[in-house]
């Protein structure tokens, strides 16, 4: 048991060290320089930040296929707010808030509160309309939208159906719908605000590390500690491990699930800020396929797609492994198509290794 637990936490780390050393030996000089380490961390920030949220969701036995679309929507929202002359803080909170609203909608659909999801959508539309068409200040628009949604939610609560839906289906739907929404908001083009402000500078080169990377690492620390040391964290694992047991033990399963999606997808909103900084624009077609990269990072990090297992540390290592392989291959001048095959093989191999270890543990 002790050996198994050790292998669990050390396994992905050994993998990371292995690929890093491998490429260091093959490449020599340029790969091991600090500037390349900084670059790799910066390249990991977007997927890594989103993967922290996805880890919460996957540990709880859920899945989020809409991460890429949420990130694209986030960049567009940030772009539009900056373009309209809102202060950068409002733009940043707007991007994260938009993602959290997406999480709230997904969460309410997953627990089967159709009416709840519709009221949230109504509130979001009202907020957008007040701000864009009537020129209401952002805080007032958000406040009005939230009040309206809450009021409506209280009204429909009595009649609300209980029709739980599989997260796979809900987020598959959102994968399409959110990207469509992003394109509509951006009028099928990109949004280039005149001044990208500090939001656009999150991933810019800095003396030690870019601000965005610090935010990514900080978020990892906080989330990791929350999973391990808070009741909420224990409940996330409990729901993923055995939802019925959790309910029996008095865990508020539905409420917790909604929070898991709000916070988890909120992480995708933070990732969207970094993606915006990377592009210096809001782009509804960006981050295509990121949902799979994110899931790959979580899985390589040792989480189980059937829930109940996974760690933030593992996820970060998983995301880093993918970046190191990408970067190492690029340094070696290996074609992109080879990298893609290597990454694919790695995902399957990581899970297979995990299976073998599991079998030995039981």
């Amino acid at each position, binding site marked *: *048991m002790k050996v198994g637990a050790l292998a669990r936490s050390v396994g992905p780390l050994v993998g990371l060290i292995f690929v890093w050393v491998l490429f260091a030996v093959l490449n020599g000089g340029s790969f091991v320089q600090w500037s390349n380490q900084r670059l790799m961390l910066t390249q990991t920030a977007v997927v890594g930040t989103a993967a922290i949220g996805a880890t919460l969701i996957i540990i709880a036995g859920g899945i989020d296929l809409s991460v890429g679309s949420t990130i694209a929507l986030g960049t567009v929202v940030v772009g539009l707010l900056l373009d309209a002359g809102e202060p950068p803080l409002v733009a940043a909170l707007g991007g994260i808030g938009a993602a959290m609203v997406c999480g709230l909608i997904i969460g309410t659909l997953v627990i089967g509160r159709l009416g709840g999801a519709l009221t949230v959508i109504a509130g979001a539309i009202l907020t957008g309309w007040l701000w864009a068409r009537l020129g209401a200040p952002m805080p007032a628009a958000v406040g009005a939208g939230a009040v309206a949604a809450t009021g409506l939610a209280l009204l429909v609560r009595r009649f609300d159906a209980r029709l739980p839906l599989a997260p796979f289906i809900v987020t598959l739907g959102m994968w399409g719908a959110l990207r469509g929404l992003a394109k509509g908001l951006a009028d099928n083009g990109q949004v280039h605000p005149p001044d990208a402000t500090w939001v656009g500078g999150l991933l810019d080169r800095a003396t030690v590390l870019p601000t965005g990377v610090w935010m990514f690492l900080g978020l990892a620390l906080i989330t990791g500690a929350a999973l391990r040391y808070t*009741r909420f964290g224990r409940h996330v694992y409990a729901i993923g491990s055995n939802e019925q*047991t*959790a*309910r029996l033990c008095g865990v*508020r399963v539905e409420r917790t699930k909604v929070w898991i999606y709000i916070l988890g997808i909120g992480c995708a909103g933070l990732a969207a800020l970094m993606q915006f900084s990377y592009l210096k624009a809001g782009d509804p077609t960006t981050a295509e396929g990121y949902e799979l990269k994110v899931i790959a990072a979580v899985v390589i990090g040792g989480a189980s797609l059937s829930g109940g297992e996974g760690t933030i540390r593992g996820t970060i290592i998983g995301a880093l492994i993918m970046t190191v392989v990408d970067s190492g291959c690029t340094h070696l001048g290996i074609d992109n198509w080879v990298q893609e095959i290597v990454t694919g093989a790695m995902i399957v191999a990581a899970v297979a290794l995990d299976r073998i270890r599991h079998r030995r543990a039981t």
Partner: protein
Amino acid sequence: MTPARLSMHGIRKRFGATIALDGVDLHVAPGEVLALVGENGAGKSTLMRILAGALTPDGGTMTLDGGDYEPRAPVDARRHGVAMIHQELSLAPHLSVMENIVLGDELGPGPFVRWRDSRARAAAALARVGRDDIPLDDAAASRPIAEQQLIEIARAVAVGSRVLVFDEPTSSLGAADARRLLDLIRRLRAEGLAIIAISHVLEEVRAIADRVTILRDGRTVGGGAIDDLTTDQIITLMVGRDVDELYPRQPRTPGEVVLDLKEVAGERLPRDATLTVRRGEVFGIAGLVGAGRTELLRAIFGLDAVTRGRLRVGRLTGPASPTRHWAAGTGFVSEDRKTEGLALSWSVAENLCLPRLDRLARLGLVTPAAEDRAMARWVERLGIRCASVRQTLGALSGGNQQKVAIARLLFADVDLLLLDEPTRGIDVGSKAQIYALIDELASADPARAVLIVSSALPELLGVCDRIAVMTRGVLGPARDVAAWDAHGIMVDATGGAA
């Protein structure tokens, strides 16, 4: 005596550290019904899973009509003509009655199925079990449980089985259906099949079996012609100790009422339940599987909706969520340890602490070290056998798992314990510990109240102060345990009195 059709000799099987079977002998002849009896956890199901090819024994030999019989997989057993009729029916619910009967044995050229022949065969099989009136094209799930069981028996006879194994055949049936099933078993015996019936109901065993084999703790401890054994002798062999020793009873003083139900009904079940339970009292609910006992406990605990009636549970009046019940001093042990009661992939400590993490939290933070400390005390107190409190719960024996489920209530320090089949499938030693614990809780100061649902009548009669019987969703009047005996409970449970 006719030569045995099936012999099992010296069968041994262990799972990790648990020895499930330790040298079991069993013989059954053609045209004979053998009853296999023993307490839950005695090894009956393991033995039958070995017979059906679902498990490979670690030792021992099996012969079938004189030849070696070593099934590698269930399909192998079926090919040899050994069929199981499980307690939980294993029909494909979406397929039709006919498709279920010929499933896995469809006749036809190459990859195709010749449905006309299959139909005829299915119809013939149903006729053999005496129910050619069951429509062949209905979805299996649309037929009543009793018919589904017959469909499964028809499936077994359709492939020409020589040995039929029934696992608790009447447990989910009403009295009339049960009687018809026993008639069918007699008829199949007359046709020359060898039949093994696993059963808890000794009256039933007496009614159909020719011989009986008794298992305890993975060993054959006795057996013989049913007419040579008294029911008391069988029970003594099953339990392996005197009844008084198993059920300790210290003086209990009933205190304030902590559970008060008035005409409570749920969405489907229960239909009408009225009862009160006081501190210092152990209240038992008897009844058949499916009578609504589990649903009643779930409704009390807020896991299922209450649609009618008044209820007061501890300090809470009216329906409340499980979260509030835990906080207000009520705890629940589920009958379904594996899928609902416990998270088997979690550690012992994590399972214990889940309902009341707030008791461990410092400034909202829960450390694994605090969980371990809380657990260590209960591991010792309940004698839970585990390598460490961080051990995965799934690696523990059923009895130790159940002790963790109950320790969870003790850790939460509840006043009212709702126990659903608390000793199902666990060894006698763990059972005795759980009975002693229930007695201790009811007689301690302050005394706790215990509401227990059980299908084991000796257990109810042994631990309870008052018992009420639930029949088709309606809870009968509660009476002192002295006013009940096993026969009376069964009469009420099967609706015989009505």
